[in-house]
């Protein structure tokens, strides 16, 4: 999957976006093969939206390059880049019907009114909204508006499709269904797609490849499965719900941080590594357990919060901070509350070590 990305082929998107504005500094290499969906994932203010706007020509870049199917788009203004963009709250023109919204792009590209409307009607049909052609955007639901916005962006037959938080404006209720529909539509699109989201689940479901951006820099990329299994920053670890540590491995033991604490693993890997384990693999004890699980440490509980039918227990260092996930019954049994001191343990077989 990543081979197409690294190749920097003439096909699809090949860009390096450099935007400097005061303290803000974005420098991001980004590629996307035709048909590939790349998700830019990152915390607020990381620069992912700026990257998308730079691709669209709405933000001036101060360096780098931008090619789509070999054509240099960087010197072109937005209206001549031939890209399609779906904005966060869709920005359908409120004074035009759904049909005329979709026909807007083709009209701007010089098509006659009737031809443009015919094309627009075809696109509305494809997204399943043929019967809403005459509706004003105000009369559409969030999901319908999103599909009109998608049809509007695709109607200009772009070679690069940009989606800015395409699901953020929807309520949790309809989100699932609309995400599935969006995935279907994206699968039918032959050009490159870049989407921005702060929701890891949206990114995992919609994208073929994740690009994680923090502070204007790429910090990790890979398929959703790779990223979910091997997070490389605290932010990504939190997103995918893993405890993550960096350290030095030697003969099955990882020296975490500066030490002296160590964690045992069954992976035979030496040198700088990441070590990850799931919160559910952390066992908690009130008193020091008998027999000795090798990775055992004393920890203080800093927060206890319910999540679905599980309870997340935040443990503070030293030796290291971690999150444990236990059942509500265990919480009662252990009499867990903020501030209590407990024993925590992780089996060596539950840890996962990979090169840093």
């Amino acid at each position, binding site marked *: 999957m990543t081979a197409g990305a690294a190749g920097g082929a003439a096909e699809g998107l090949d860009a390096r976006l450099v935007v400097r504005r005061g303290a803000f500094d974005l420098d991001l290499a980004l590629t996307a093969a035709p048909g590939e969906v790349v998700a830019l994932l990152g915390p607020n203010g990381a620069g992912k939206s700026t990257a998308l706007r730079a691709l669209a020509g709405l933000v001036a870049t101060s360096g780098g390059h931008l090619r789509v199917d070999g054509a240099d788009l960087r010197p072109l203004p*937005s*209206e001549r880049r031939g890209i399609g*963009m779906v*904005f966060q709250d869709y*920005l359908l*023109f409120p004074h035009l019907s759904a049909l005329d919204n979709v026909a807007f792009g083709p009209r701007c590209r010089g098509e006659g009114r009737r031809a443009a409307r015919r094309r627009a009607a075809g696109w509305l049909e494809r997204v399943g909204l043929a019967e809403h052609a005459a509706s004003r955007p105000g009369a559409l639901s969030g999901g319908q508006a999103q599909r009109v916005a998608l049809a509007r962006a695709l109607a200009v037959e772009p070679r690069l499709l940009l989606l800015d938080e395409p699901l953020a404006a929807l309520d949790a209720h309809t989100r699932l269904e609309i995400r599935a529909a969006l995935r279907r539509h994206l699968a039918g699109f032959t050009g490159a797609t870049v989407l921005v989201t702060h929701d890891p689940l949206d990114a995992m479901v919609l994208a073929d490849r994740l690009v994680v951006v923090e502070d204007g820099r790429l910090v990790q990329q890979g398929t959703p499965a790779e990223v979910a299994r091997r997070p490389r920053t605290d932010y990504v670890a939190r997103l995918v719900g893993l405890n993550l540590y960096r350290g030095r491995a030697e003969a099955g033991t990882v020296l975490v941080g500066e030490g002296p604490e160590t964690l045992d693993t069954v992976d035979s890997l030496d040198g700088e590594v990441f070590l990850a384990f799931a919160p559910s693999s952390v066992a908690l004890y009130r008193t020091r357990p008998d027999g000795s699980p090798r990775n055992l440490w004393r920890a203080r509980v800093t927060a206890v919060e319910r999540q679905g039918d599980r309870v997340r227990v935040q443990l503070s260092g030293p030796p290291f901070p971690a999150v444990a996930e236990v059942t509500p019954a265990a919480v009662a049994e252990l009499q867990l509350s903020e501030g209590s001191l407990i024993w925590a343990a992780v089996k060596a077989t539950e840890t996962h070590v990979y090169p840093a």
Partner: protein
Amino acid sequence: MSPRGRAREGDRPPGRPPWVLVAPALVGLAFLVLPLVGLLVRAPWSTLGTRLVQGQVLEALRLSLLSATLATALCVLFGVPLAWVLARVPFPGARLVRALVTVPLVLPPVVGGVALLLVLGRRGLVGGWLDDAFGLTFPFTTAGVVLAETFVAMPFLVISVEGALRAADLRYEEAAATLGATRWTIFRRVTLPLVAPGVAAGAILCWARALGEFGATITFAGNFPGRTQTMPLAVYLALETDPQAAIVLSLVLLAVSVLVLAALRDRWVGTS
């Protein structure tokens, strides 16, 4: 006065409105309404019909409506682009230009009339050249009336439209740009429809201001019945010779403005 909680809509504010506020409010209202009542009370209702059809009244009314409408058209034609430039194109000295645009608002209209004479008068800076080259003269013509009214009314339109442009969501224009629209197309098909209520409100203000224009008109265009004598000028003139006629003219002007504003308000600025 309960400080607790925020009043919800539909809740009555606590207590009775204090007289310190209600009394001056009533005085203010009376001050605004009484003169209008005076007009109605003193109107020569018995002879109203015959006076109305007198040539002079209809002539002045026709001229007033025509010139105010033409002036409004000119204001829209030049004022909307001016407002767009002020709102969308950053340039050095923009603040100065914005201040200059509003000068006619605070300038006594008579001074505006004098200024227009100096520029567009037969021997004015531009007027002399226009006269020589094209035989165009503005002072003491109907065209002069329209220009005087445009000068005085344009700031109302520019301010109203510029406000609407600044309030409009720029991201719609960005969306249009990504769809391939040039700036002119964006203006025509996205920006203008979005600020249409602002343009309508500005045009109405403009028209009302132009309809009531007196100072600049009489200074620049004079007071010739049938040519440059608009309703306000006719009212002023009649007051010296025939006060009853002045009242009739005033009534007509009042009725027309109220009618037109009410009609337009329902149509364009009613629900938006």
